[in-house]
């Protein structure tokens, strides 16, 4: 997946470096509960997508453009309906798996609101892998519209067979099931691009660069001390 040349133009950003409004929307590093009351830490590193044209041009895999993962409607926060847009780096992993699924079943189509959804999206009632960029809702595979038990169950089985990493939602009307699309996800994966240095997590900043970090400083210092001993104590 790393060989796709056009992707090299993507800028990686630490969401802590974004402006107040974007940080409030993306909530980098915050803990959020899933429907089973398990807590998950929201992603911090995002690709910055400068324009609609760029989103269309950038291929994450041979058959998946970045634009397919950022299709949203008016339920997304207004700021995230405008460019530059932000999408968690783990979307590359999802695209890789979708490419494998595509090879098995033919062309697949991600629904609007079916790729990345921010924590501010109106469909976001609790943590979902969509907020990590690691879930996709497919509304069509080939010419089959996925809105009945037969088609959803059939393609769910193929996806499960393909990779044990893929979770699919069973057909049904209740919460945690899907009846007018096929949901698949990889769980709560966060991706740390190799270009990124994590020193800001390991060494507390003397002068936090943003008010947001200032407010969160105590938590982050606690976290840092638990994770990695400071160098001067070696």
């Amino acid at each position, binding site marked *: 997946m790393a060989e796709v040349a056009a992707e090299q133009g993507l800028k990686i950003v630490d969401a802590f470096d974004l402006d107040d409004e974007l940080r409030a929307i993306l909530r980098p590093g915050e803990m959020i509960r899933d429907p089973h009351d398990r807590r998950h830490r929201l992603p911090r590193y995002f690709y910055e997508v400068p324009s609609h044209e760029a989103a269309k041009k950038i291929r994450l895999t041979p058959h998946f453009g970045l634009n397919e993962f950022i299709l949203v409607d008016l339920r997304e926060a207004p700021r995230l309906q405008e460019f530059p847009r932000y999408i968690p780096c783990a979307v590359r992993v999802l695209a890789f798996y979708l490419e494998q699924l595509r090879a098995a079943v033919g062309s697949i189509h991600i629904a*609007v609101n079916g790729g990345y959804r921010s924590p501010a999206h109106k469909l976001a009632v609790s943590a979902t892998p969509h907020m990590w960029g690691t879930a996709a809702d497919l509304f069509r595979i080939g010419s089959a519209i996925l809105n009945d038990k037969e088609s959803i169950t059939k393609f769910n089985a193929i996806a499960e067979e393909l990779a044990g990493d893929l979770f699919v939602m069973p057909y049904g009307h209740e919460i945690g099931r899907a009846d007018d699309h096929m949901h698949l996800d990889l769980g709560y994966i966060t991706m740390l691009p190799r270009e990124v240095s994590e020193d800001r997590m390991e060494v507390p900043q003397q002068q936090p660069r943003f008010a947001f970090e200032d407010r969160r400083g105590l938590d982050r210092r606690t976290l840092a001390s638990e994770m990695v001993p400071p160098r001067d104590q070696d």
Partner: protein
Amino acid sequence: MKKTSLLKTAEVAERAKDSIAASEVSLYHNVLRIKEAHDLEVLGIAFYDYETTIGWSYNADTYFHAASTMKLAVLLGVFREIDRGQLTLESPVHVRNRFTSIVNQQPFMLALDRDSDPFVYTNLGKTMTVYDLAYQMITTSSNLATNLLIEVIGVPTIQRSLEELDINGVKVIRGVEDQAAFDAGLSNEVTAHGLLSLLKIISEERAYSVAASQKMLEIMHDQQFNSGIPKWLPKAARVAHKTGNISTIHHDAGIVYLENRKPYVLVILTAFDAQTGRSSAVAEVSRDIFSTLAGIING
């Protein structure tokens, strides 16, 4: 000389009054004749003419199943949200055929073969703008577009807009094709007076703003179903309207623009037995009202 002139004026006024009264009586008899001829179970009519300032109604406070005339209230609610900055005409909406019943919270889908507009279905999984959905909802009576817009703005917003604009006689409680709600006796309802007052507000450009009212009128002018009010009007007539048809209902509500005169607003609601089937009653009532108004003006 002056005295004679005053007498003449009074005489003309008296004659005009007699003429209007006679026209009203004649219209009333014609309406009864049409009702009987088409075997209508219930008929409701209301109109207001801006040229003569004559208003007339028949059974105009009786509630009917709204059928698709409720889409006018949805349109009003959409423009309320646009006026408040909550939406724009360009806002993208995910086209998805999945809705939740107001009765049992169970999901339901619309049947393509029961929708008069297949176009919106071709966009399943994609987005359409609020404007495009509003346009399809009114001009081709798309049920899918209607339910999508209701989902975006919510039924309480629609009711709030009706209340804010002091429109009584239009009750919107649910979207289209919610069978569980229908079976439970929960349906949207309208009276002829209710729809008349909604249309008057739009035609007088008082529906939130002049721009919003004009945009709504622009959409209504593109109505594709013209077998009701416009059918037997002069070719030059332009009608901004919305129909409502189900197996036992045929309604039409609109604003009629004729050359060299101010418009009139007209609502015709009909209910009949499913065996009787749809008729041309709405078009006939519309033609009689046009003739009556033309007769009054021509003396």
